[in-house]
Structures are given as C-alpha cells and as structure tokens.
C-alpha cells in the first residue's frame, strides 16, 4: 500500500514540477537550472540513511561516499545559485553572462 501511495506522491510531484516552471524569463534560465540542481541534491537524505544504517562496511562506505558527493552538490549548488542571483540584484536588466 505504501508503494502505491508513493506513486500518488510521484504523480502529483511531477505535475507540480511541470506547472511551476511555466513561464520563466530567459535571464533566469541558468540560475533556475542551478537552483533545481541544488534541490536534486536531496539524495543526501538517502545517503545519510545508507551511511548511518550499519548494514555492513561496503554499504557504509558507499553511503559515506554518497554523503560526500551529495553534500558537494547541495552546498555548492545553493551557493553558486545565490552568487548568480545576487548578480541580478545589482544591475536589473543585466543581459550578460546569462545568455542561454
């Protein structure tokens, strides 16, 4: 039953993802991509569980590796996105550097 519920969750999430990114100005494409990339680092949650669950050394090592990579993704992703966005705040219609 839980798997099915998760299916419902999946379906709703996909729709929501589609709807959210309906009309985005071109200048935001790169930051948006980067921001979404940071969110996809959510796999860190899985990594944490794997690394912490003590299912054997291999599993723990794999988990730890996963934690490291996922952390890179999360930390780097959010920071980079933030840097990109703070560029916009300064010069409002800055069309440079974000031509996609």
């Amino acid at each position, binding site marked *: 039953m839980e798997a099915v519920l998760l299916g419902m969750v999946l379906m709703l999430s996909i729709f*929501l993802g589609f709807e959210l990114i309906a009309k*985005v100005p071109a200048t935001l494409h790169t930051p948006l991509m980067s*921001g979404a990339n940071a*969110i996809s680092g959510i796999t860190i949650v899985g990594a944490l*569980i*794997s690394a912490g669950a003590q299912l054997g050394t291999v599993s723990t090592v794999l988990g730890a590796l*996963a934690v490291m990579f996922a*952390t890179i993704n999360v930390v780097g992703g959010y920071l980079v996105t933030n840097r990109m966005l703070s560029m916009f705040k300064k010069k409002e219609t800055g069309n440079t550097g974000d031509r996609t």
Partner: protein
Amino acid sequence: MSIELINVWYIVAAALFVFGLKQLGSPATAVRGNLLSSVGMLLAVAATLFNAEVLTFEWIIGAAILGAIIGFVAAEKVAMTSMPEMVALFNGSGGIASLFVGWAALYNLDNSTFTYITIVLSIVIGGLTFTGSILAWGKLSEVMPSRAIVFGAQRFVNALLLVALLVCSVLFCLDPSSTSPYLYAIVGLACLFGVMAVLPIGGADMPVVISLLNSYSGLAACAAGFAIHNNILIVAGAMVGAAGIILTNIMCKAMNRSLTNVLFSGFGAAKQASKVEGEVKPINSEDASLILEAAQSVTFVPGYGMAVAQAQHVVRELGELLEQNGAEVTYAIHPVAGRMPGHMNVLLAESNVPYDQLVEMDDINPRIDNIDVAVVIGANDVVNPAARTDENSPIYGMPIINVDHARTVFVLKRSMASGFSGADNPLFFGENTRMLFGDAKASLSEVISHFK
C-alpha cells in the same frame, strides 16, 4: 523522533521546495526562492539525522564535512563566467551520490523485486548523469575539444550499449544480489552510456545538455527514494525532474532548436554534411519572442508588407518593449522599400518612431554582422541576397540591406510568394533565417503578447 514525525518535517521541507522553485521563476523573488529551498534542504537533512535507522555518525560527519568544504570552495572560487561548468560538476556529484545510494540499498535485507527495479534505475540514471555531466564540464571548460565528436558507427555502438544495459538489468533483477556480476556491468555500462550520449553534442548546446542531465539527476534521486522508501526523495526528485524537462524545453525553444535536434544533430552532421540549404524553417510567435527577449541588438527592416498589414503601430510597440528590455533597437530603411518614395517614413512617423532610430541602408550594412536579430517585416526585394550573388536575378546589382549577415533573421510574411520584382529570394532558405508566417500585424501582436 518517530518516523511519522520525521515525515511531517519532510512535508514541510517539500512545501519549501515547492515555494522555492516557484519563486525562482521570477526575478523579483528568485533570491528568496533559493533561500527557502535551502532551508527546506536543511530541514530534510536535520530530520533525517533523527532517523532511528541512522546509528553511526562518524562516517557521515567526515564525509559531510569533506563534501561541504569542497562544495563551498568550488562555489566561491569559480569565476562568474564558468558557472555553467561548475553546475555541471555539482550535478555530476548528485548523480554519483544517487548511484551510491542505490547500490547501498542492495544491502537492505527485505527488498522486493519492485525495489530492485528502482535500485537499478537509480544506479543507471545516476551513473549516466555522472559521466555525462563530467563530459559536459570538460567540453565547456575546454579541457577537451568542445566540438561535437562523431565517428562512423556511433549510432550502432550506442544502440548496442542500450541493449546490453537492458539485458544486464533484467538478468540482475531476476537474481538480485550485491555481489552479482551484472551489477558491475550495469554500473560500467551506465557510465559509458553517459559519455557516449554527450560526445556528439557541440559545446554551444551544452547548457541544454546540463539542464537535461539536471533533470536526470532529479529522476535518479527519485528512483533512489523508491529504493529506500523515502518520501522526500521522491517528491523533490520528481519535482526537479519534471521542472528540468520543462526548463530544457524552454531553453531549446529560446535557441530555436528542438530537443531531438540538440541531442542528435551531431549524428546527423556526421552523415550529411551539406544538406542544410533549401529548407524553410518556420518559427512560431512564442519562440520568436523568446529569442527577441534574449537579443541585445535588434533591427527592424520594414517593407511593403508592413504597409499592407498596417503594422507600423505594433512594430513601434515591439521596438519599445525591446528597448525596455535593454536591447538596442534600430529601423533600417531601404530607399526603395514600399511602393512610393518615403513610404516607410510616412508610416513610421505616424506611429511615432523617433527619427534617430531610423538608419539608412549604408549605415546599417557595415555593422549588420553584430546585430543579434534582424526582423524583416513584409520586405522582400530589398533584402534579397540574390541582388548580390545571382547575376540572372532581375534585381542583380541593386544594393540591399544585408540581413542575411545578421546573427538571426526573422522574416514576417504570409507565404513564400515573391515581391514586386518577382525574384526568388534565397534569404528564406538561409541557415539563420526563421520564417514567421502570417499577416505581419497579427504575427507581431502575438509576439508582443508573449512578451510579458
């Protein structure tokens, strides 16, 4: 913390992701959006640490600190201009993390077949995201040649790879075990496939590829979520996956390409080097508005068709919008455009186009190479390159406005019909020409309506 409570926090985190993504879509709120989504991430991570299954922390802490330092340094040090390749690298780490999560999940004891399938999925998608991203980084940062790399049997090799991957996956699922040789085969094949998929794509198309890989890494997280029955992974992963697909699509449109064209044009190029000519490429008003939005210099080239359509007012309006958008806008007037001397002047003056935005043919031609988009509005003879090149053309020798030298040309007319002189116009078949068919006024109004 009970698993229920943790999941309540996951719900909150998911809601924050939703808000975050939404707000990232508008310039005014983007910064806040990114912040919200990072808070969501923090919540999710924190809640997870209370999970009863998480017993040891040493590994975690070590790995996390290492990862955080790497991520921080990389993000802070990177030059503004090499952001896209940095995003590619981060994305690759996400992919390989999913691969590891899936792999580690094999060591769970009570996996169902369904779970094994999702494990394989997370390994495959994670793996190809990883190598694909690395390659994309390589091409963008010019560590390796950024051009499309193609070789003869590429298609065949790729097909073979896919089949092998599929077979191994099935075999693995039939007899899943953490020591199955198929597992290693799957990992290897997935990584190889990632490389092969990105190889034939040129450097200029990399942003699209990265966006697509980004979508994949979301899907990998989602698959990993199913593998370990974790809610937030599924929600966030699926959402990012879907958003990534849409975004990829938008970006393709803004580049005036289709996704398949981006992904497979390299193959095509390998086989048929010079078939491009003779093909008319129509464009719709929405895509046209996306391209105009990104342009920094736009020149309008009006002709008799603008007069017929009485489109002078919408032309000026679009011009104003583009100016507000930061573009430099000019109106290039050919001396014989229209059906009477000064025809265009009458109309553009009526619609209040400032005199200093009108430029003569001789002034625009030397700098037309630097124009991002030339918008030809119901002109035909006056932009016909045959006047330069085709001795048999009735207009051979007439100086024209060389719009074909601009980066992109839009031609707004109703059909492929010829103009006053009856001469065929090779401009319409140009590599960088897009035809926006329809009455010029209607077409421009539509373009404007997409321009919010």
